[in-house]
């Protein structure tokens, strides 16, 4: 069955059909949640909730991009989680910035040497911490645009804001992250420092 047939079957209540869609999209959905939440456990919870929510509200899906539909739901799920953590900081939200390689072995690339791997891990760590410093709306916009590669219009649809708002949020998020990385990458090798001269 193709995607539209799976969606139609899932709308009729066939969980198996929906699980086919889950298997196809779960990696992208989890990655989005992971980059927004910055924590594997929180990302897994948000992903599971997003899939349940997507299945239960599938009758509202009226065609279009199913991927955008899922991304919108997981982005909203993460946004709600972030607000909840902000209101009830009993869970160490600060720890979200500490990307734990052991907890997320996927970040390890077996083809690179130990030193290169360590540097890349450090850089990923710094970038994720930088992302975690952003306000929730800017963070989600940045991840949707630069991690998921979504167009401005798709982001506007997914986050229910105007196109201009997407542009301004993305610009601010990038500028803040750039300033953050400038400070944090001074101790990293030159190739990781933000010292680019213009080559336009």
């Amino acid at each position, binding site marked *: 069955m193709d995607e539209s047939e799976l969606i139609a079957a899932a709308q009729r209540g066939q*969980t198996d059909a929906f*699980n086919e869609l*889950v298997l196809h999209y779960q990696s992208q959905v989890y990655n989005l949640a992971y980059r927004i939440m910055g924590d594997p456990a929180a990302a897994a919870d948000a992903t599971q909730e997003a899939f*349940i929510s997507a299945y239960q509200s599938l009758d509202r899906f009226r065609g279009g991009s199913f991927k955008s539909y899922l991304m919108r739901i997981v982005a909203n799920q993460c946004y709600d989680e972030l607000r909840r953590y902000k209101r009830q900081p009993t869970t160490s939200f600060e720890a979200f910035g500490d990307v734990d390689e052991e907890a997320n072995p996927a970040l390890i690339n077996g083809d690179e040497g130990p030193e290169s791997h360590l540097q890349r891990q450090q850089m990923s760590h710094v970038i994720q911490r930088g992302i975690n410093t952003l306000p929730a709306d800017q963070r989600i916009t940045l991840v949707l645009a*630069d*991690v998921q590669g979504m167009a401005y219009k798709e982001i506007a649809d997914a986050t229910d804001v105007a196109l201009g708002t997407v542009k301004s949020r993305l610009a601010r998020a990038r500028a803040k992250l750039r300033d953050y990385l*400038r400070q944090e990458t001074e101790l990293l090798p030159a190739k990781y420092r933000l010292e680019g*001269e213009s*080559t336009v």
Partner: protein
Amino acid sequence: MKGLTKQEQDDRNELLSAYLDHQLSAEERARLERELAQDSALRRELEALRETVNLVQDLPQAELPRNFILPERTPQRHPPEPEAHLTSDRPRAWLAPLLTAATTIVSLLFVVVLAGDLLLAGLGQTAALPERTEPNVLGVEVADTEVVEEPAVQVATPPGRIATPGDEIGERGEESVPDADEELPQRPPRPTPTRPVGMEGGAEPTEAPDDKAEAATTAEPPAEQESQAANGELTMEAERARDTGEPDERRPTPTQAVAIAPPAEEGRSAPEEEETYVVESPRQATRRFLLRVAEIGLGGATLILVFVTLRAWRARRR
């Protein structure tokens, strides 16, 4: 970037960010590229931003900790979401007092219109009642018709007593329903008389003795007076038309339902001459139709408002 305000810095960042994503118009792009060619600091900003975007895009894909397939018995539908209450129930709850007031007003309007309609219909029925019990009494549907009485009748009516169709029928005896066509040439134009309303298949009113007509007259309800007063305008016009010999446009046409009393017999005194027109004019028919429409509309609106108000109060209690 020194010397720029925060707003200017934000604007510049937005321009650079959109430039990286090819979201600028040709004109904006050309202008920015001219600035970049002249401003090394701006070039550094752009490159730093470009590297930042590249770093984020190069972040490794996180590996799944597990599968996220749903269990077989996952329910299909959502329970009502809290957001849904914000957009539907909450405003209804907030509107509950307003809806209550609106329901009250519309209900009162409905009752007033209904009562008015019933009252007028009741008058008509009251006036028509003797027609069924007393064969010689003309039925006059006050609510649906206009009663036109010649001024002479008013004069002839004894004080404290109101002239009714029964009077002239009783006094006229068997000649109460003559062929009115014979009268037309001798009088100003007036509607073609027909049999009185309600007497089509019944007994001839002419057989009723006068004393019964008198009884019917005295038993007439006071509402009859109101109907006659309400029709005073038409009565005056009828009188004027007869005096001047001009046709009265408001008089009934042959196609209208007309109940007309017979003309006075020769030899009878003028005060005894009584004529009664029972006319349903188009205006009255329209008025009655509008009244019905108003009743239906107000009744429906009342029901809907009651339903919505109850829901609003239920939502408010939640």
